[in-house]
């Protein structure tokens, strides 16, 4: 599906494995990134807010895609792992006064350790049984969030100060935008590179045929745990960023519903594709906002819609997932590639 332009072909393995297949795509990507740095000067707070929550969702979704899409281990616990990151960052910031530059990586590492512990059952479990084990992780962690009040503040939650960077406090959407954007670029680039290395290929082989992988000398258990670790690291970083963004952490943000949302992001975007996680994160984050506009538009004529909004949102979420699974199982990435191919092949579209 990746059509290259006429006259461009790879003459070495390095070029074949390159991130930018051609000069044109390099220019496009850099142009897009530069425009992302310029955009915040022209948009209002609401759109900045949307961008910020998308950044956080992208990081979480990329992490989950490494575990579920690339290694093939279904996880229903991403929401809880995000919570672990958020609480760790909050606790470190409050108790030890750590700067976010330090506390975010530490939150990531601790979440990675928690994720690896819950990944241990993967030694003996596969497929379904493992996904149910991660479901248990979700419930156990949620229980800890509520009960371990001396760390998490229980149901009332934990509040912390805005992130502080050389005396610049990231206390509004505009300032947080740049932090979020830089983190997202770093994390996505890292993920893209993990996939290209030996580790990523080992992950793929575990997904495609773990017996063959084992026969080729890949230590399956090690790579499964590593995959859990990397995925949870991403979750932890996303959670820590969320903590610094909203500054009040409560257990409601890390329920099974959040885990399901992340799972639907990578399915709607495209399983096993980094770009897919980005598309999916954008789609699922914007869906309730679009629905809000639609219901707001109709509320003047049908006032009962305001009360029913929560239910309508959930129903729409379910319907969107079902429609995607039935009609576009490979996700938005496929659609994107089709669009690209259309323009490459135009006017000879067949």
């Amino acid at each position, binding site marked *: 599906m990746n059509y290259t332009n006429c006259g461009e072909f790879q003459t070495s393995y390095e070029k074949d494995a390159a991130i930018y297949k051609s000069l044109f795509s390099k220019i496009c990507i850099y142009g897009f990134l530069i425009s992302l740095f310029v955009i915040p000067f022209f948009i209002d707070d609401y759109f900045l807010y949307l961008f910020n929550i998308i950044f956080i969702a992208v990081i979480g979704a990329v992490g989950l895609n490494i575990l579920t899409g690339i290694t093939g281990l279904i996880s229903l616990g991403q929401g809880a792992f995000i919570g672990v990151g958020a609480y760790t960052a909050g606790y470190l910031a409050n108790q030890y006064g750590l700067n976010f530059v330090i506390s975010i990586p530490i939150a990531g590492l601790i979440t990675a350790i928690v994720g690896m512990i819950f990944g241990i059952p993967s030694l003996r479990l596969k497929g379904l049984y493992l996904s149910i084990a991660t479901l248990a992780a979700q419930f156990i962690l949620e229980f800890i969030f509520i009960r371990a009040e001396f760390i998490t503040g229980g149901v009332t939650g934990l509040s912390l100060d805005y992130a502080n960077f050389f005396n610049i406090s990231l206390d509004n959407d505009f300032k947080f935008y740049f932090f979020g954007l830089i983190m997202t670029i770093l994390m996505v680039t890292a993920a893209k590179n993990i996939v290209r290395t030996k580790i990523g290929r080992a992950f793929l082989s575990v997904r495609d045929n773990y017996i063959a992988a084992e026969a080729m000398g890949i230590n399956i258990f090690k790579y499964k745990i590593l995959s859990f670790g990397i995925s949870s690291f991403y979750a932890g970083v996303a959670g820590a960023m969320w903590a610094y963004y909203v500054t009040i952490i409560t257990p409601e943000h890390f329920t099974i519903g959040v885990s399901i949302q992340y799972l639907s992001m990578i399915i709607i975007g495209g399983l096993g594709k980094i770009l897919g996680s980005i598309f999916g994160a954008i789609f699922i984050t914007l869906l309730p906002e679009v629905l809000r506009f639609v219901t707001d538009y109709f509320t003047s004529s049908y006032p009962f819609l305001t009360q029913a909004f929560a239910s309508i949102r959930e129903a729409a979420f379910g319907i969107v997932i079902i429609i995607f*699974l039935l009609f576009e199982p490979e996700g938005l990435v496929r659609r994107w590639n089709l669009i690209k191919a259309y323009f490459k092949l135009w006017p000879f579209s067949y």
Partner: protein
Amino acid sequence: MEFFLQLIVAGIVMGSIYAIVALGFTLIYKSTGVVNFAQGELLLVGAYICLHLTVEYRLNFVASFIITILFMFFFGFFIEKIFLRKMIGEPIISIIMLTIGLSSVLKSVVQLIWGTNTKTFPQIFPEEPLIIGEISISYVYIFSIISVSIFLALFTIFFKKSKVGIAMRAVASDQQAALSMGIDVKRIFALSWAIAAVVSSVGGILIGNINGINTSLSQFGLKVFPVVILGGLDSILGAIVGGLIIGILENLAGGYIDPLIGGGAKEVFPFIFMIIILMIKPYGLFGTVEVEKV
């Protein structure tokens, strides 16, 4: 001692309801290989319909019970026909996500129709409990245990004796062979969804009689996982035994651990127990051990 026995009795009641919901889950998994995350929502739909019939249309409880069961039968049948049929051969994660999507649609439709407040069934059973020795058992408990036992017995006979039941077991053990013997596998798939919807609605009606109904009842669908994991995903006997064990253990944990940590042990204990079981016996007590050959 009295406290202990009381917990055990309540545990057996909850356990038997878990067992019947888990039976539906196992049935679907066994014959179609689908893990149904919408089991709890099927229970919710069944419970609300029965409630609606008894409260709004003032039907006799038995009549509305039977109508609900008939309705749920066709409801399950069509869910399979419309949604799951198209997913045959798709990867496991897509099917899991489809049932999750289905569950959020069903739940929100229930919320739109009936709201989120807890509703209770009209008093059907006598209020003062039956007292045996030192422990008191309310009549609704006795009714639950009896009706679950009847259903489980009926299913055992159904699977052992009836032609359709045998066909279902055949499909479960080997689809290819069943197909070549002239069994309509697609019909069996739809039928197992129909039966699963029926048994979970029975569970929903029973639990509604005990505790009242609200949308958080759909949590039952997730609670069923420790049960089926303990019993083994594809074992009907396992679903029953697992249901009883989890029901009793959960109640004991609620009774003895809750005061120490301030509540919530009931919700999380089954899952901790499940992880331990998974580590020791990955295929549960009665589950089939998958042998993999290259």
